Structures are given as structure tokens and as C-alpha cells.
């Protein structure tokens, strides 16, 4: 009897990421969160944030096991109070010119620290199958991705921005681990250029079409007339100009951003492994993702934000449906690592000032 040939060194079992949340449940949680936040003059919003994260994490499954979020409302609140106090002091002192410049320089130094704190806190507070994530990035690496590379990209007239972006993703992914098992990411730069070019092409093509349509419609006549004469526009004209600007944002900038997001998400997932054994597979169709994002925004505005929970669920489900984990070994071998101290200041800064570090699961 012949022994079966040995399996190839790397055999993957694909496991679909499942999002089991639904709009009914999330709508109830969302509206209760909102009311409690309003009643408490937004103090409760720290606990609301935890509940939101818990809802989305706990309803996301890989291989039958879900994610979880472990931060407490109190941690989030303390971080936010510190950030708000800093923001108030910064704003008031900005009225004094010399201090404003010094404050800005100080902020540049603090920025990488905030980035590291935020990533570390979020990783440490997240788990899958009761194993915590971790983040081991350092100040120096964060300073490179927040200050140095963007500056270098600017010096090359942003032609090297994809390099800066890849470095940023690499810093984020490669410093993450599940328990003690590290993630690692390496992708060719050409794919990042493809994504950037796709976004630019969208802006140029759709922007040209929209510009042409708006010119023909005469909405900007008032604006040009006022630029000629230096007289302020009539209020009705101002309103049209503002609306046209939003239309531009809506069909030109936002979809280009979504396009880039979807394409880079696919790149990152498809070039990341976990401990060399497990791999990831993201197949988000970029144009369908644009469709989801744009129709979501229209639904949210049209419903005066009432459909926000529906839109969030729809997006989470769409992304999960296009994500697989390629399992190349036992899922039971992840062990919790010793946890270092972490605080919520960077995370709170992200909440308030929109520090965007999401690599998007």
C-alpha cells in the first residue's frame, strides 16, 4: 500500500469572516447610546464607544470564534478628559503668537507618541478567541511615518506618496501580533501606485464631467461674476455654490477615497501573514465598495442620520463577506503575551481629532 504523498508545505483551509450583527439590534443599541450621551452632556459617550466597539467586534467571527473589545468606559473617559483639557489650553494659548508657534512644534513632537499610544491601546484592548492583540511599534518608527515620510513625499511633489503610505501600513501591520504571534506584511510598491492612479483617474474623469455639467447649468455664474467685481455674492447664489461644493465632495473626492481604501485593503490583506502559518484574503470589489459608501452617505443624510446604524451594518457585512482567513495550522496555538502598560490618550485624540489609523478589518 502506498503512503499518500505529503501535503504541500503550506496548505490553507479558507475560513470566511462572518459578521453576524443586524440592523434591528444595532439600531436599538445606537439610539440608547445616543440618548444616554446627550442626557449626560456627552460623558456617557465614552461608554457608548465601548458598547459600539463591543457590538461590532463580538459579532465578527473567524472560524466560529469572535473578536472582543475590552476597554472600559472609564479608561476612555479619562483619556478624553486629558485630550480635551489639552485642546482647550492649546486653543486659548494659540491667541498668543509666540506660544502658538511653540505649541505647534511641541505638538509635532507629541504626535508620534500619540500614534504609538493609540495603536498600542487599541491592540491591547482587542482580542480574538480570548487571545489579546498587541502592538510593539516605537516612537522612532511612528515619527518616520507621521513626519519624515510625508515630508519627503511632499518634497517630491507627492509622486512618492505611495511609498510613504506603504511604509505607514508596514509599520502598523508588522508591529501587530496576536498573542505572541506576529503579523508580517510585504507588498510590491507597484500595487500601491496602481491604487493611487485609480483614485487620481476617478478624480480627473468624474471631476471633469461634473465640472462640465455644473458650468452648463450656470450655477457658478454668480461666483465668477463676484470674483470679477469683488462684490459679495447674493445669498441665494452662495447657497448654490456651497451645495455644488458638496456635490463635488460627494461624487469626486469621497468615491476616490473609497476606491483607494478598497484597493489598498485588498493589497494589505493579501500580503499579510500571521506567524508565517496563516494568511489573509480580501476580495473587496472596488467599484461596488464605492457604491456602498456613496449610497450609505445618501441614505444617512436623507434620513437625517436615522439610517446610520443600517449603513454601518451594511458596510461591516459587505467587508466581512469579502474577507477570508486562510488557516494554515491550529487555531489553538495562540498564547497570550505579557501585557505592557497602556493608556487611552492616543485613542481619545483619535476620536476627537480623527487620527486615522484604521487598517480596516
Amino acid at each position: 500500500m502506498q503512503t499518500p504523498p505529503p501535503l504541500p508545505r503550506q496548505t490553507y483551509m479558507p475560513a470566511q469572516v462572518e459578521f453576524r450583527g443586524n440592523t434591528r439590534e444595532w439600531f436599538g443599541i445606537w439610539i440608547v447610546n445616543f440618548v444616554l450621551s446627550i442626557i449626560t452632556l456627552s460623558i456617557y459617550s465614552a461608554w457608548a464607544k465601548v458598547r459600539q466597539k463591543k457590538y461590532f467586534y463580538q459579532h465578527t467571527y473567524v472560524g466560529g470564534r469572535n473578536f472582543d473589545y475590552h476597554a472600559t468606559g472609564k479608561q476612555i473617559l479619562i483619556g478624553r478628559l486629558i485630550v480635551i483639557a489639552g485642546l482647550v489650553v492649546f486653543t486659548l494659548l494659540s491667541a498668543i503668537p509666540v506660544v502658538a508657534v511653540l505649541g505647534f512644534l511641541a505638538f509635532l513632537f507629541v504626535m508620534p507618541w500619540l500614534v504609538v499610544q493609540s495603536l498600542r491601546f487599541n491592540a491591547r484592548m482587542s482580542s480574538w478567541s480570548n487571545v489579546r492583540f498587541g502592538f510593539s511599534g516605537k516612537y522612532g518608527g511612528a515619527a518616520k511615518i507621521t513626519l519624515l515620510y510625508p515630508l519627503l513625499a511632499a518634497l517630491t511633489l507627492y509622486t512618492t506618496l505611495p511609498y510613504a503610505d506603504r511604509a505607514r501600513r508596514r509599520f502598523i501591520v508588522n508591529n501587530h501580533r496576536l498573542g505572541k504571534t506576529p503579523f508580517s506584511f510585504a507588498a510590491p510598491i507597484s500595487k500601491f501606485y496602481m491604487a493611487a492612479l485609480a483614485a487620481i483617474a476617478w478624480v480627473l474623469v468624474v471631476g471633469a464631467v461634473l465640472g462640465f455639467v455644473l458650468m452648463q447649468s450656470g450655477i457658478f455664474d454668480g461666483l465668477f461674476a463676484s470674483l470679477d467685481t469683488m462684490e459679495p455674492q447674493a445669498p441665494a447664489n452662495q447657497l448654490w455654490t456651497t451645495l455644488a461644493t458638496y456635490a463635488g465632495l460627494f461624487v469626486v473626492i469621497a468615491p476616490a477615497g473609497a476606491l483607494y481604501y478598497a484597493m489598498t485593503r485588498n493589497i494589505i490583506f493579501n500580503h499579510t501573514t500571521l506567524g508565517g502559518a496563516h494568511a489573509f484574503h480580501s476580495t473587496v470589489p472596488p467599484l461596488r465598495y464605492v457604491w456602498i459608501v456613496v449610497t450609505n452617505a445618501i441614505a444617512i443624510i436623507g434620513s437625517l442620520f436615522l439610517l446610520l446604524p443600517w449603513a454601518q451594518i451594511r458596510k461591516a457585512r459587505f467587508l466581512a463577506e469579502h474577507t477570508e482567513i486562510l488557516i494554515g495550522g491550529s487555531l489553538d496555538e495562540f498564547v497570550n503575551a505579557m501585557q505592557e502598560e497602556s493608556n487611552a490618550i492616543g485613542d481619545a485624540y483619535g476620536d476627537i481629532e480623527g487620527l486615522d489609523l484604521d487598517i480596516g478589518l
Partner: protein
Amino acid sequence: MVEGARITLSTAGEDHLTVQGTDGDLLTSAPLEKVTFSDRIGSAPRRLAFPDGSVFETDAHEAIALIEGDTRASRLHAWEAFRPRLALVLLAGVAGIWAFWRYGLDMMVAVAIAMTPAPLFGAMDAGTIQALDRTIAGPTDLPEDERARIRGIFDDLIAILPEDSIRSGQEYSLDFRSIPAIGPNAFAMPGGSVIMTDAFAEKFPEDDVIAGVLGHEIGHVVGDHGLKQVYRSLGIYVLVALLAGDTGPILENILLEGNLLLSLSFSREKELEADAFGVRLVRDAGYDPVGLAAFFRRLIEIVGDDAGYRATHPANSARVERIEELIDGE
């Protein structure tokens, strides 16, 4: 990790939770109050953490709810359920937005102003004036006696300010600058510094007009309008970020633009308040309050009467009307 287990609550004596494997082996056990229940959120599995470090996970929501009993977390979950009662929560949300906008924000701004250290007022004024001098403002060309005359009017007004309307850290002072970029203008800063442009003193030399406009600017300082505006926009910025949560950049922009429009309406409201304060102050100091109305009439002739939806100030004609109503009414 063990798949399949049963959990038993024994109520003989003290409440006790026991977890057994499918083959009947004892996995873990602890007194009920030592076991930590994860909060119930949607239909996510519950996690029961035992003191020995083992975690029991289950989808048997109703059973766990029975064991857990009535807790704050379980009541929260009950309110979140999608049923007619949720409409009440929705109504509360709408009412909450309104009340928050109408009262909550003012309350928070008042607390913030009370907490602002007094020396900061003067420092902010000095900083703004420095910045002006470095950019668009030059030294005044007004003759000495003209400046003395206008300062005299200013001092007349300050002299009759009620004691309680001057907060510590605020020191009223009037300065003159040549600022061609902003034409005939006067403005006040949170610490009590008022600046009048040369063009203003030249175009509107009448005592009553000067008194009227200075009274209006003093009204801004007494009402803390500048500082309120700063705190308000800062507050709304933070609140939009915290309350709206994860809306994405575009929607956040739209919310903030809405906020900008609303803060302009706040600004127009404060202009009217300062007008009203000025009219009273000027009259009490022995000047003719009609001066302010006359000023706005002349302004209509010079720059027109337009107040768009993005204007910081109300239409001049509306202000004239309001001022005349105030004068007639008293």
C-alpha cells in the same frame, strides 16, 4: 479549549455555578458572585469568567439572563430591544438634541468661562494686538486731542458700568490703529481691549455715534461674547466628534458645516444683544442712543444692506429697526 459543556446553578445554601464537560467531568466551579458575566450586547455569546481563569462561553441567552437576574447591564439591554418602547427612546433623542443645543451647550460654556484663569484674558488680548501690529495694523495718525476726546467718551461709558459686570482679569482700554484693510471699524477683545480704526474716527466724528459704537463693543466684552464663541465652536467640534461617533469624514464635514451656520446665527444674535446693551449704557451715560442707529444708516449708504446666510452680522436695516424699537420702548 473544550467544546460542549453544561452549566448548573445550585441554589442549595449559597448560590453556586458549576461547569461540567459533556462526559460529566467537573471543569470549574465557583460561588455565583465570584463569576464575572460579560455584558449582554445584541446576540453575541455571553462569557462567564471564573476566578480560576477559565472562561465559559455560551449562546444560551435566556438561561444566563435567568441566572444573572436583574442588573444594570440587563436593564440596558432590555431598553435596546427593537420594540415599540424604542420609539420613546428615539423621541427622547430628538428632544435631547434640541435641549442640548438650547441649554446644554450654554451651560458647558458658562462652566468653561468660569474656569478660565483671569491672567489669560489679558494675555489673549495682548497676543491678538501683537499679531495685528505685525500684519495689517499700523500706528494711528489721529491727532492727540482727537484721541483724548474719544477716550473721554469711552471713560464716561466705563465709569457707569455696573460693578458686577467687570470680571477679574478684564481691564477696559481703548486703543487706536490705522487698519486700512478693514475700513471704518471698531472691535473688542475678551480681556476688555477695544480697538478703533482711524478711518472710523474720521468718518464718524460725532460724539453720539462714537458713544453708540463703543457702547456696543463694551456690550460684547461684558457679555463675554468673544470667549463664548471660542468655547462654543470648540465645544461643538468636540461634541460632534464624540456624539456622532464613526460617521466617516464627509458626513462629519456636513455636520460641522451645519454647526458653522448655526454659530453664525449665534454671532448675529450676540450682535443684537450688544446693540441693546450699548443703547442702554449710552443713554445712562448721557449720550443720545440714536447715534448707533444713525451709524448703521450711514453704513447702509456706504456698504449696502446685505446679510447673507453666512453673515456674522445681521442686516443693518434690521439693526436700525431694533435699536429704534428699544429707544421708543423705554
